């Protein structure tokens, strides 16, 4: 597989090759080390402006659109919760989300997803890769593509971090670099807030750890003399990133945040992980996925959502506020997404089942038109009546919001593979 680099997305603002630009900056600015701490304020500002990032809040198991973004109060299957007005006139969301209701100017809603797949595994794969794998082609997921498009080749921080502490549904949508290869595979956190092998083994002193790495480097340089191979180069690059990544352990340490900040996000596991996600993207990590499970409410749908939606509402609002105060919101896209939504029909266990024909997601922050609502489901929410889209258009919209041309091609061997299926158009109406 040869991935040809063409970072030009067609717009005049992006006519400079982004990696080339950053590479030049990196070579020139001696202070560009460690955690994105920059010696040169002008350079820092420019870089900050250029780098876009993304946080995906993955609602594993399938959150209900009816109890979140597309309530249908008053109809027989509408459930017990009402709809409340938001700060955007005419837009109503579930009463379980009062905080987000006040922040709708940063968020757009898509209420017309028809993704035709109500199975946890294949549904999750489609929603995380934007399409189905082919027999002989494994597609990279959103995180891997963004790691490649938005990350830096020599980055000292991870490119793609994924939290998924729950066991339910974790196997459904594992992070996957697909044909992009393991360089863009996620750093996955399943059990501990600290990534695996990022902390030095206690039997090796810091000095020895550093010295033996230098020894390794010297020996490998001798070997590399006269040998040209991208794979060989990647081996040395991987080792050169080790010390930097180890220094990023602080980013994963939530106790380094002031108590007021921790209080803002709340004491829940989800809240803490989203706070760490903010620490990571602030330091230059281009993509973080935080999974919150388990929304699969086949029974007791309303109790489940009464418990989980307010937490989502609270944490999401905290994240938007925090990013806004740091000047990062306009450069950070926040996505709330699941593998599917839930049926309008209420089953005998007072649950809602899997439903992929008319459901919702939200995009906030970078590149989107806040307050916009795209698409419409019918009165009961059983089908889409306006603006139906699938995973491909959603992904095209996400890429566009982040300044990436959704029709940009990768090459797998000689085969051109566009980022989204050929001819897919983003939803212009929700883009800034």
């Amino acid at each position: 597989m040869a991935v040809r680099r063409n970072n030009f997305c067609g717009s005049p603002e992006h006519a400079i090759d982004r990696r080339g630009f950053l590479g030049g900056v990196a070579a020139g600015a001696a202070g560009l080390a460690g955690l994105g701490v920059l010696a040169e304020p002008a350079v820092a500002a420019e870089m900050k402006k250029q780098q876009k990032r993304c946080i995906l809040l993955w609602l594993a198991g399938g959150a209900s659109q009816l109890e979140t973004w597309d309530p249908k109060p008053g109809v027989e299957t509408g459930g017990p919760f009402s709809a409340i007005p938001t700060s955007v006139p005419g837009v109503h969301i579930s009463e379980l989300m009062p905080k987000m209701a006040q922040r709708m100017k940063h968020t757009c809603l898509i209420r017309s997803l028809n993704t035709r797949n109500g199975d946890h595994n294949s549904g999750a794969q489609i929603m995380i890769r934007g399409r189905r794998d082919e027999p002989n082609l494994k597609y990279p997921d959103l995180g891997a593509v963004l790691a490649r498009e938005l990350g830096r080749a020599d980055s000292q921080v991870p490119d793609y971090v994924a939290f998924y502490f729950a066991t339910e549904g974790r196997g459904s949508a594992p992070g996957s670099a697909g044909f992009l290869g393991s360089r863009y595979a996620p750093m996955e956190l399943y059990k501990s807030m600290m990534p695996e092998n990022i902390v030095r083994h206690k039997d090796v002193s810091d000095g020895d750890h550093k010295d033996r790495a230098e020894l390794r480097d010297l020996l490998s340089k001798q070997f590399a003399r006269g040998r040209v191979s991208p794979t060989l180069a990647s081996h040395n690059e991987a080792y050169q990133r080790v010390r930097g990544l180890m220094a990023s352990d602080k980013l994963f340490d939530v106790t380094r945040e002031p108590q007021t900040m921790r209080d803002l996000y709340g004491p829940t596991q989800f809240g803490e992980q989203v706070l760490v996600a903010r620490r990571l993207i602030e330091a230059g990590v281009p993509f973080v996925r935080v999974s919150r499970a388990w929304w699969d409410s086949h029974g007791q749908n309303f109790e489940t959502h009464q418990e989980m939606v307010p937490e989502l509402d609270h944490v999401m609002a905290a994240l938007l506020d925090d990013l806004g105060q740091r000047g990062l919101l306009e450069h950070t896209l926040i996505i709330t997404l699941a593998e599917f939504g839930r049926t309008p029909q209420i089953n005998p266990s007072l649950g809602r089942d899997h439903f992929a024909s008319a459901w919702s997601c939200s995009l906030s922050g970078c590149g989107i038109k806040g307050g916009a609502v795209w698409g419409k489901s019918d009165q009961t929410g059983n089908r889409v009546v306006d603006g139906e889209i699938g995973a491909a258009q959603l992904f095209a919209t996400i890429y566009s919001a982040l300044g990436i041309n959704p029709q940009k091609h990768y090459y797998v061997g000689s085969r051109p593979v566009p980022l989204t299926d050929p001819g897919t158009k983003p939803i212009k109406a929700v883009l800034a």
Partner: protein
Amino acid sequence: MLMGGNNRGRSLNDYLTRALKENRPWDRIFRDLVLPDENDPAKKGAGEFLRSRIMDLDRLTAEVSVVFFGVNVSCAQCHDHPKVDDWKQDHFYGMKAFFSRTFDNGGFLAEREYGEVRFKTTKGQEKLAKMMFLSGRAVDDPAGTRKPSGEEQRKEREQLEAAKRKRQPPPAPKFSARAKLVETALQPGQGDFFARAIVNRMWHRVFGHGLVMPLDQMHSANEPSHPELLQWLARDLVEHHYDLRRLVRGLVLSKAYSRSSRYPTGPAPRPDLFAVARVRPLTPMQLATSLRLATTDPSSLPASLKLEEFEKRIEQTENSARGFARDFEQPGDDFQVSVTEALLFSNSERMQRDVLADGGDRLVGRLKQIQETKVLVDVAMRNVLSRAATEEEQRLLGDYLKRRADRRVEACRQVVWALLTGSEFRFNY
């Protein structure tokens, strides 16, 4: 490639190991896999190839075409190939028709004498797929669109149930579509798909770069770098009854194979010129086994060991490496080493306490007993990299050890670590 990347196929693995050991010709292996005789204990395990794939006919069709014929027709599943005139929807569904009558019957493969594949063309017309090999050669189907009568179906069901009860393979059909595929693919003049594909694959295996790249794109719009050579090797293979050992011997005794991976002056020539050997990453099993072997005290594997005992020890080593191998990624053509691997080598408990352990039969255990630094460095180099240390390396590693005289064991560990994590160890060069 035949295992399809899963670990379930232990029996298939056993079959392949046996077949390669006795140098079974490639055309016979192909026949065993596509047309397994599940009554024959000598071919036990071969049926696993189809059985593990039969639930997904599209995937089976695509994989058989890739693995045995070097072509990827999966694009032609939905549309005629946009750039390659060779591949039409007829090819994909033509190949699929050879397999569509096959199914799993209680853990054994069964095949019907009837059954059809229909597909929608891009223009929306429904079309009946003719059994057709990739060369375009169609096979006459005696059943055609005939449907069995109710009586015939009832009889068939009874036969299948009886076979299930007896835990036996059901009777073979009088007309087997799969047998026709094998027959057609091996006929002279069928475009040499079969012979050229395995030659290209073996060449890729040995040189790290195929004569045609990628391996699954052997078609008229993607010429080989050395067409005459590919043709000659394919012809030689057919003339010598698909003898893979002869093929591999020819490749590894070639001048091209003996070339260095180093190109000291000027920019390196293109890989498809084979003027310089390719640096290739070890596979997960190779890497894990090498790690184990390289950190074993050399004196525990003396030259006096009997061959049988030696082979047993190597097998044990391979088995003990299997777990670690799962932590590494299978390298593809443009593989990039992940930082996860570098972190694993740098900081894991497994590396520090297991691979670099200083127990009795371990390398570090041996090194810590060697007083003279020069000897120590030499034992370490020979064990890990199978060569003597250069003067420069002697100096470099010697200095490193000397500076850590107060913690000699740790120093030994670190030197071995630097050798194990070095590119020379990680790559086949």
